[in-house]
């Protein structure tokens, strides 16, 4: 190093440094971590990485855009088709909560329902919710939380269903859709208490034909009764006219 320095032509106004520090001590690459000069430590402290401001956590604010539909697996599509078929064919669809029923309880329930033609269906809640959100039965979505069972039948056999469910304590009826009408649990109970269609029709017919039958019965009686009634009616009319 001294040779190279002397070899260079020194400028007139140049100068040689008075002291030359020869680096000694450990090399650049050592097995241990070399002690760091305090100024270098300060440099390292000053030039630390500062990350960008953290964004709010994902659930903090409601998302502006619409919820993206999750990828539907083929199994889900298959089950959705089954659900669609059920809702199309059956007039009554009852939703009940199934609280830890054992296989023998389920067997008895199915047997009792089968006598009335009611079927027991199981569908995953995920599938039900995605089907209901796209169909007209959207208001049934809150019913499908937790372990649920569907009781479906082609004819609305509400009375029989309620009777069977009263026997099995594990099943709690949440609601039903009977003839495209959503009913709550109380609604189902009151629906069951309604008289049958034939009885209602009979009552209606009776009510409509009541005046005609009354007139008929009046004429069929003895004519003296009719004249007495008419005289009484005339007297009443005259009294009313005198009063006014």
């Amino acid at each position, binding site marked *: 190093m001294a040779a190279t320095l002397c070899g260079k032509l020194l400028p007139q106004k140049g100068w040689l440094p008075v002291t030359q520090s020869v680096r000694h001590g450990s090399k*650049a690459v050592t097995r241990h971590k070399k002690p760091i000069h305090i*100024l270098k430590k300060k*440099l390292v402290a*000053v*030039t630390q990485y500062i*990350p960008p401001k953290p964004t709010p956590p994902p659930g903090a604010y409601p998302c502006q855009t619409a919820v993206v539909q999750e990828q539907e697996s083929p199994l889900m599509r298959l089950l959705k088709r089954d659900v669609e078929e059920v809702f199309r064919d059956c007039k009554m669809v009852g939703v009940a909560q199934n609280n830890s029923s054992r296989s023998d309880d*389920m067997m008895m329930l199915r*047997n009792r329902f089968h006598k009335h033609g009611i079927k027991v269906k199981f569908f995953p809640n995920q599938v039900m919710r995605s089907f209901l959100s796209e169909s007209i039965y959207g208001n049934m979505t809150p019913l499908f939380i*937790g372990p649920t069972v569907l009781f479906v039948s082609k004819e609305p056999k509400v009375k029989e269903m309620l009777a069977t469910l009263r026997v099995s304590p594990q099943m709690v009826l949440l609601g039903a859709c009977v003839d495209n009408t959503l009913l709550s649990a109380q609604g189902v109970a009151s629906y069951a208490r309604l008289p049958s269609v034939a009885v209602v029709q009979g009552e209606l017919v009776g009510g409509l034909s009541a005046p005609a039958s009354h007139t008929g019965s009046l004429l069929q009686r003895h004519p003296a009764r009719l004249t007495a009634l008419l005289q009484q009616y005339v007297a009443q009319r005259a009294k009313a006219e005198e009063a006014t």
Partner: protein
Amino acid sequence: MIALVKAAVVSVAAVSAHGHQHGLRHTHLKVLTAGLKTLEIPPDYSDVVLPEKPKLKFMNKVPNLKKVKKEMKRLRDIQGPARAANTFTSGQYAIVAMGGGYIHWGHLEMMRLTINRKMDSRTTFARWRINAPYKPITRKGLGQRMGGGKGAIDRYVTPIRFGRLIVEVGGKVELGEVEHILIEVAKKLPFPAKVMSRASLEAFQQRQADMEENNQNPWTYKRIAQGNMLGIRKVLSPFDLIHHGRFTGKFHIPGRV
């Protein structure tokens, strides 16, 4: 005779009675629970080609040279990041060096024997990503005084830098199946090492690039060192200008940008 007929009639009646319930028979013992299980599709290995010799090949202790020459220490072959062999070629998972160091034949034998013994050669293959030892390391005898020339060649080593791949493993396997083998080997290496997959190595390299990009600190080591602000180069080494404070000697300092 009459009893037999009676029994037959009863059985026929029973069969006919249960006939209408045949639809229930399949489901009466099952209690379905709520929830739809979506299963993950297992990975498709149809495009993976296994080589003929799947195991790690033997590496020589000493290179095949006619004339052996003693070499200078040149410790700079340990320093800084690796520029070569820091990406995947054929395998899926690899051991990546997280520091600098020298690997000698003992380490290589340990790796070869462990990996060859523990891996399934029908479904996995392994490849070396480092050379056989070629750098001679000299050592003087025990108790010798200074002077008397350079020592004799003691052993040969392979220098390894930070970020270099050591061994690559691939085949019809997932990371979980080979991870325990590679971790066992990685712990015994003379420098810190990690097991990474293609995705995780890319993520690792990307993280460093992201850190450099979105650093909110206006003062960076590179800026201060290159500008010699406050005469800081008095306490810095010339290598700090190149490595920007991420490496000191053979060590890598994580978290520096």
